[in-house]
């Protein structure tokens, strides 16, 4: 038997990482979870969660993460605030390289999640934090009585646009297609909200201003017609990209960069598992992430039993 610092290392501290950590800690594995910032991930920027079972009145992202973290810690999960910068999965004992050290483990669960995708249009980067935002709960209150645009048509875009109407005078929702992708209940709420005006078949082409956002340019993709909207905020929710840069070519990924895992959540490398938004999956929700994570932890436990 080869020795390793840990039985299991979990990379990433969103709902998937925390859940995997809780299962592993209860299985009494020698486990550590690395989170480069603080536990939470994308959930931290979610204003309100009403589709996670057990909370009929809904719960804020912040509170849910706090509860999940407390629960995992209660069973002894060790959480380290550090970043894995690269990995070496070429040996049976896996190496995880941090800025100032390397740790080894028999098994690894990758739960690094995803980050908001960028539009890649002029002004997006320049005005980030100066009107351009991806977090309605953080930044919505700065736009009290102002007009803002929101880009996207999925659950996040629609739900967060509805949240923005608490502050903004008007929310222009810009969507590339002629119907929304968001869950039916969210569509109903958006369509009946007087403060939301949807610009269908449209794309944002530029963001302008002096020091802060003052206007955005919108093009209708069907007619080619362009128009400018005088707004002070621009919220972008057009989907996500997996956080997998540190992995290099170590595990097999799909064309978009998401990690391919089997029904046991095992990747192309034996003993390396993936859970949550970072893997190729038809649905990315907290409920699906914690489900992935429970399976990944269970699979990792069995893998470790066999190699040790």
């Amino acid at each position, binding site marked *: 038997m080869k020795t390793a610092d840990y039985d299991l290392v979990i990379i990433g501290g969103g709902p998937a990482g925390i859940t995997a950590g809780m299962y592993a800690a209860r299985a009494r594995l020698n486990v550590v979870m690395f989170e480069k910032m603080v536990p939470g991930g994308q959930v931290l920027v979610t204003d309100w969660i009403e589709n996670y079972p057990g909370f009929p009145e809904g719960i804020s992202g*912040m509170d849910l993460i706090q509860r999940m973290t407390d629960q995992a810690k209660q069973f002894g999960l060790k959480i380290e605030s550090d970043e894995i910068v690269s990995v070496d999965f070429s040996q049976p004992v896996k190496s995880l390289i941090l800025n100032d050290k390397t740790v080894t483990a028999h098994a690894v669960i990758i739960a690094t999640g995803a980050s908001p995708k960028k539009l890649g249009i002029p002004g997006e980067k320049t005005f980030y934090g100066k009107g351009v*935002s991806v977090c309605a*709960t953080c930044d919505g209150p700065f736009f009290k009585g102002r007009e803002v645009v929101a880009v996207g048509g999925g659950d996040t875009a629609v739900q967060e646009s509805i949240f923005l109407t608490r502050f903004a005078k008007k929310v222009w929702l810009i969507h590339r297609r002629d119907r929304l992708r968001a869950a039916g209940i969210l569509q109903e709420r958006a369509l009946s909200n007087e403060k939301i005006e949807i610009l269908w078949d449209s794309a944002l082409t530029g963001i302008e201003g002096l020091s802060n956002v003052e206007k955005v340019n919108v093009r209708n993709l069907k007619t080619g017609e362009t128009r400018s909207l005088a707004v002070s905020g621009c919220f972008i929710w057009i989907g996500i990209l997996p956080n997998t840069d540190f992995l290099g070519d170590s595990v097999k990924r799909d064309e978009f960069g998401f990690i391919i895992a089997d029904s046991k959540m095992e990747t192309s490398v034996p003993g390396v598992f993936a859970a949550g938004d970072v893997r190729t999956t038809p649905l990315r929700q907290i409920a699906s992430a914690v489900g992935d994570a429970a399976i990944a932890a269970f699979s990792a436990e069995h893998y470790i039993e066999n190699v040790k």
Partner: protein
Amino acid sequence: MAGHVLEISDTTFDNEVLKSQKPVLVDFWAPWCGPCKAIGPIIEELATAFGDKIRFAKCNVDENPVSPGKFGITAIPTLIIFKGGKNVKQITGMVAKSKLEADIKSLL
């Protein structure tokens, strides 16, 4: 042990930040902002590590709207490092602790 992070307000901003001899890192935050609450402990850890060379302060933008307004802040968490009263580095959003450490070191 967590380092000391000074609470500043619109009233004390000039004296504590702009007129400070040492560089000052100001964490603009609000109670409604999840990532801000999350970044708080990291700022305290940084204050422990770098507190002798740079002051650490936090400004609640909900109670003190003037100071963030002056710097055009419309997103939080935003961290600004002031040196000699000037904004020398502005960081918006959640960033890794290692990245913040590198930013601080580069300004010392």
